[in-house]
């Protein structure tokens, strides 16, 4: 074997990088003269784009996939039924993840900078009444843009027009009324939230003032035979509104307002709006239902099957139109306020255009996947789950398990869904940190997440149970909220803020369609008139558990302090 000699230094020189020295001034000069964009290698593109996309994709992936797997797993393991239309659902779920990712990024880039800027600048420049008008419009426009709103329309088809005529009307011919009622409810809530920030009203007082009349209204509606069926929808709407568009937009404006009136030092200045935005729409929807039903049967419009011939209802166009309808009002409002009221230009126009385009595309893709993915999955689960304890609705096969065991399994399943959906929620993590700071570490982040998750889980189980056994929803609501009010009365203002806001945290664009469809599928399977109310129970559950945990921890620390002193 012949030897080939290579100087070690030469070898090192070949594999090591060489330093070439250039004066920084020379570089700056050269770049100033040469305005051409640098040519990117493929590896540069990969390094720039891959982390950007994968982080955002993973965020939504973790919100959707575990929940979907839980639904599929329960059906596969406990019910031994495999999923129908697997491919379609898989594509649908992928579209939901992709759509949410694009939509959230678009909102962050295209809309959030406006909201922050407007929130900071507007209070000093215009009359307070204009500010309140803007709050009203912002709340309403943000509601249109909320992805979960689309799930309501998808739920309409399964409501029986004979047994719940007004509910069917609200979801069918009067759907615009419903959305408008919810939007104006959120708008009013944002106005109240802004006033609350300016005058430093206590949320405790507001809750104690708003909720009892609301419960009375609910109880009154429950006595009217034509309104009973609407209660579930009205309370569910409260949960739907507090999603990933409304909350950050409203918070951005709220923080700006708080800063400009000199109350930014309060760590709670951002809280409370979520609570109001989940309570006021309930009043609005109930109000609309009362008004419509007072018109008598003359107001009943024929429920038309969706016309499928025109291009507006065909697959890509319908979703694109829906996306435009959802986002354009919000964009117009923010742009008009920025240019006309603040007389400021739109900064970074290309980023703004990119953000809006991405948000539109995301919304359209999300809507595409919503029906074929999430709603189909939830609906199938709802249809199959009662098979555990009753004969199968479609095939008539005998129940799989003895009645008590089947019911228990179903309720445990509902609890697991609620618990699992909550633990993965990133917003809750941020809230947990705030709680730890507020309570000097007595109320740990882990405890908060657990308390909220248990609350949502129990809420989901109660909601499912009420559909299965046809319990009166209004009694559960009045009972639950009375308990929450009682606890509120004894709790500190900080805990009240956190507990009532935690109710809105869990109802994101993934949980809402899944739970709605699950409830409606269940309702159909057991022959109930309607399947709403699970979301409503999921909202009241965490209020009770968080307030309860807070009070218990307060008592505990007080007792410990006393025993130390003596």
């Amino acid at each position, binding site marked *: 074997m012949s030897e080939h000699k290579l100087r070690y230094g030469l070898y090192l020189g070949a594999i090591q990088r060489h330093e070439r020295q250039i004066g920084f001034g020379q570089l700056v000069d050269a770049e100033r003269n040469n305005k051409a*964009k640098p040519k990117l290698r493929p590896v540069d593109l990969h390094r*720039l784009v891959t982390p950007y996309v994968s982080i955002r994709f993973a965020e939504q992936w973790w919100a959707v996939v575990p929940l979907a797997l839980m639904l599929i797993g329960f059906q596969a393991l406990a019910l031994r039924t495999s999923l129908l239309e697997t491919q379609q659902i898989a594509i649908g779920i992928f579209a939901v993840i992709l759509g949410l990712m694009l939509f959230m990024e678009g909102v962050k880039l295209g809309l959030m900078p406006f909201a922050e800027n407007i929130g900071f600048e507007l209070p000093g420049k215009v009359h307070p009444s204009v500010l309140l008008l803007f709050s009203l419009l912002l709340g309403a426009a943000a509601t249109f843009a909320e992805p979960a709103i689309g799930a309501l329309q998808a739920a309409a088809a399964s409501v029986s027009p004979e047994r719940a005529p007004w509910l069917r009307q609200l979801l069918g011919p009067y759907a615009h009324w419903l959305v408008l009622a919810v939007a104006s409810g959120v708008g009013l809530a944002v106005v109240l939230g802004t006033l609350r920030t300016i005058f430093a009203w206590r949320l405790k007082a507001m809750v104690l003032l708003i909720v009892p009349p609301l419960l009375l209204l609910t109880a009154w509606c429950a006595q009217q035979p034509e309104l009973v069926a609407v209660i579930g929808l009205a309370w569910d709407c409260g949960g739907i509104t507090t999603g990933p568009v409304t909350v950050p937009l409203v918070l951005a404006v709220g923080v700006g307002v708080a800063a400009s009136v000199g109350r930014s030092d309060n760590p709670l200045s951002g809280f409370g709006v979520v609570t109001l935005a989940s309570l006021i729409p309930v009043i609005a929807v109930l109000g609309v239902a009362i008004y419509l039903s007072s018109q008598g049967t003359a107001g009943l419009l024929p429920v038309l099957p969706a016309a499928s011939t025109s291009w507006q209802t065909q697959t890509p166009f319908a979703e694109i139109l829906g996306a435009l309808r959802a986002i354009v009002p919000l964009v117009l409002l923010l742009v008009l306020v920025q240019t006309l009221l603040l007389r400021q230009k739109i900064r970074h126009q*290309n980023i703004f255009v990119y953000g809006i385009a991405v948000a539109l595309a995301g919304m359209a893709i999300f809507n595409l996947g919503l029906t074929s993915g999430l709603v189909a999955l939830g609906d199938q689960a709802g249809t199959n789950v009662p098979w555990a304890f009753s004969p199968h609705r479609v095939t008539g096969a005998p129940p799989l398990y003895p009645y008590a065991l089947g019911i228990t399994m179903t309720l445990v399943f509902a609890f697991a869904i609620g618990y699992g959906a909550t633990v993965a929620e990133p917003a809750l993590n941020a809230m947990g940190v705030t709680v730890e700071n507020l309570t000097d570490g007595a109320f740990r982040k882990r405890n908060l997440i657990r308390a909220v998750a248990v609350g949502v889980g129990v809420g989901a189980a109660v909601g499912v149970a009420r559909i299965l056994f046809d319990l009166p929803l209004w009694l559960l609501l009045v009972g639950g909220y009375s308990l929450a009010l009682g606890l509120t009365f004894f709790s500190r203002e900080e805990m009240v803020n956190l507990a009532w806001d935690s109710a809105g945290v869990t109802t994101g664009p993934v949980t809402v369609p899944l739970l709605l469809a699950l409830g409606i599928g269940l309702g159909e399977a057991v022959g109930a008139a309607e399947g709403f109310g699970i979301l409503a129970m999921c909202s009241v559950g965490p209020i009770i558990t968080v307030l309860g945990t807070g009070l218990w921890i307060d008592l505990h620390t007080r007792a410990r302090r006393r025993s130390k002193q003596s």
Partner: protein
Amino acid sequence: MSNSHNANELIVLTDVVLLTAIVQRGAADLIVQAAQEAGAQGATIFHARGTGIRQKHLGILGLTVNSEKEVIYIVVPSEQADRMFERIFVSAKLDTPGMGILWMTNLEKMATYVPHEVAARFGVHTERHE
């Protein structure tokens, strides 16, 4: 005190170099790991915010560059500095626009905890020298 002659003595380390890298948030852990494998004793990471001129050249791709940054301080002996500089450049992928910036500065002196027996060993040495 028994060894009171140490009380007004300050051990100063010389021939050290500070490497500072500014990278996108989330990238620091990887870089610190690479630096530690190359012999760095430790690292300090700050959170920061900022943009560079070169990511503006990227146009719409500039959106993929996070303006939230991490600033990494690594102190190394000057013999290791050049090698470490190269390691950090490679592991931070700084040959792509927008990925960050890296520089190195000579430190006049540095002080930190020096183990007692090590200090004693060098302390004898310097005393004799003076």
